[in-house]
């Protein structure tokens, strides 16, 4: 046994003893708030008298949403040409807006599903809002391809339904894959959102005083009673839906990118598209989450629930995905040079220095440069700056889709076909209107549904842990045994 005896000589002991370090995790709910405080805080948002600012925002949002309504009415009654869709740019703003909105949705699913699988507990304060954002964003996205087909009354041909010509959809086409991907995405997001909300709706039901509230929340809460036997199935279902949504969210934007990548057009026909689209989608989605959450936090005083730590995490994800997007742009350029295909090479030179150089510059500034500011802790802690950068991210990601779609289509193989694409007034109003539509739905959500996942937040605070009680949180512990026992 000479070998074991040699060990201490070969590796001398550095430490006499191993002491556990005390490294407390950053609290997810500040000021040691208890369960009841969380219930009160979140439920009051729904139960209080409708604030005046809400009515103002609601009316403005409704008015802006009517732009989309009017634009679509005009389109249906006149023809798809009112959208400035003409040769060679037949996809124009319609598809730019579609990809923009569908991308925004992806952060909601990332927060609710991928961060759930990765056990990132900070997601609990923001997942409900982010999931709502996903659903409303997908609704806005759906408008564009639906009306882009022109004769909207035949849009049901997109689905494999029997029709009088007995012809079926073409399953070889990525556009058909997209129909399945987007409709599945919307349905699964809705199921996940609603299922997660059931326990919180039960809380609202049990607090309801007015009859309509009792019926409304009673109906939506489907008799949830917080039984442990139910929680066991619920948690299993939640985990499974998270596990199903993860490959779903990755596949949706992958399939959206196939709409481009499967085509032979220079600038679109690249294998980097799926990962780079997914990263871009999450990047734009986090931009939108920050844009929405920061004002909500300020208006409702949710600083104890959405802490600086939450904002830090979101900024860091934005930084990470923004850097991936920047890498994607660089790699596209490299491959177009390295691939030695003159058409590819031209497409990328044209993108950066051609007639749309200004769009490319906006894209690079907003998507590659602005998120790099999040390296600085000072900026991450300055809420106003974070909000402004999040707006830049939204703008940049819209321009990314504009650059990809318009520059590739406008200057394709045949110079005789080239054109400089300009949107029409209808284009602009229809798109601006979708922000109104989105805000309209989001304001209704704030007013009538639990803004935060109360049950999930309660689950992650220290008081919830049945094995932590004696140790307790570092401060505020002294009054707890008296109150609780």
């Amino acid at each position, binding site marked *: 046994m000479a070998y074991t005896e040699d060990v201490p000589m070969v590796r001398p002991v550095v430490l006499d003893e191993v002491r556990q370090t005390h490294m407390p995790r950053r609290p997810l709910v500040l000021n040691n708030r208890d369960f009841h405080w969380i219930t009160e805080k979140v439920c009051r948002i729904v139960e209080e008298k409708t604030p005046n600012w809400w009515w103002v925002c609601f009316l403005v949002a409704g008015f802006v949403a009517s732009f989309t309504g009017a634009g679509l009415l005009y389109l249906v009654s006149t023809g798809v040409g009112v959208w400035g869709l003409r040769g060679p740019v037949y996809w124009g703003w319609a598809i730019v807006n579609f990809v923009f909105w569908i991308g925004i949705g992806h952060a909601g699913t990332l927060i609710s599903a991928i961060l759930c699988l990765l056990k990132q507990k900070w997601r609990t304060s923001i997942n409900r809002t982010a999931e709502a954002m996903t659903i409303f964003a997908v609704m806005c996205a759906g408008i564009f391809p639906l009306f882009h087909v022109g004769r909207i009354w035949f849009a049901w041909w997109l689905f494999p339904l029997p029709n009088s010509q007995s012809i079926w959809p073409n399953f070889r086409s990525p556009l058909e894959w997209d129909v399945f991907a987007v409709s599945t995405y919307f349905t699964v997001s809705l*199921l996940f959102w609603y299922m997660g909300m059931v326990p919180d709706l039960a809380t609202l039901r049990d607090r309801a005083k007015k009859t309509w509230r009792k019926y409304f929340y009673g109906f939506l809460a*489907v008799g*949830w009673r917080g039984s442990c036997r139910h929680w066991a199935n619920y948690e299993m*279902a939640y985990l*499974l*839906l998270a596990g199903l949504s993860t490959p*779903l969210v990755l596949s949706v934007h992958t399939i959206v990118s196939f709409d481009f990548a499967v085509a032979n057009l220079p600038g679109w026909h690249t294998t980097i598209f799926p990962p780079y689209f997914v990263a871009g989608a999450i990047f734009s989605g986090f931009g939108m989450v920050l844009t929405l959450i920061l004002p909500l936090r300020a208006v409702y005083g949710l600083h104890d629930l959405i802490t600086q730590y939450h904002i830090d995490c979101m900024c860091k994800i934005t930084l990470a995905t923004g850097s991936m997007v920047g890498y994607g742009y660089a790699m596209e350029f490299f491959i177009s040079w390295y691939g030695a295909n003159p058409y590819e090479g031209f497409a990328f030179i044209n993108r950066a220095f051609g007639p749309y150089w200004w769009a490319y510059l906006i894209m690079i500034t907003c998507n590659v440069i602005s998120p790099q500011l999040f390296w600085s802790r000072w900026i991450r802690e300055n809420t106003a700056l974070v909000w402004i950068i999040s707006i830049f991210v939204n703008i940049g990601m819209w321009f990314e889709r504009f650059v990809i779609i318009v520059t590739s289509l406008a200057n394709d193989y045949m110079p005789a076909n080239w054109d400089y694409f300009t949107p029409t007034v209808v284009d602009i109003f229809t798109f601006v209107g979708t922000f109104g539509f989105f805000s309209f739905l989001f304001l209704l959500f704030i007013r009538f549904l639990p803004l935060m996942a109360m*049950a999930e937040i309660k689950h992650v605070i220290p*008081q*919830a842990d049945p094995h932590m009680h004696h140790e307790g949180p570092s401060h505020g512990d002294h009054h707890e045994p008296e109150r609780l026992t």
Partner: protein
Amino acid sequence: MSKTFGLIATFGNTHKLYQAAEEICDAGFKHWDVYSPFPVHGLEGAMGLKRSKVPVFTLVGGVIGFISGMLMAWYMGEFDFPLVVGGKPLFSPIFPFPVAYEMTILLASFGTFFGMFITNRLPRHHHPVMDFNKWPGITDDQFLILLEAKDDKFDLEETRQFLESLHSLEVVELKE
């Protein structure tokens, strides 16, 4: 109205709730349940519950989804209306894969969603435990354990004493 449905014991924190659940499980009760405003970590283990059946629904949904996605592409593209597009085969397992993939996720999610409600026997209009006078607190910050009278081991006085010995805040008889 005067029939006893069960005994309710209330608890002020998850630690005592967890310990009480362990003791009740050890005492061999079958018809009982714990009610809490959020899922208490590990409580289903303390209660001695079996693994949830929801994954079965998920699996069935997923398998049906994948098969139906592939069958749909084959039936529509090759069997019912063969139409050559772009010189590509009428059917291949490759090109309808995204469709079958999405159908797998869609039906697996439906299976999970409805599986959760089916295994929980929800929606349900009313449950006797909701008649408890402190009920609204259960979806807020209270915890309670309900031992149902239909359990073989249930005896109004003995069970009451047993529940009181578990550091409960109060023990209340629930009438049906």
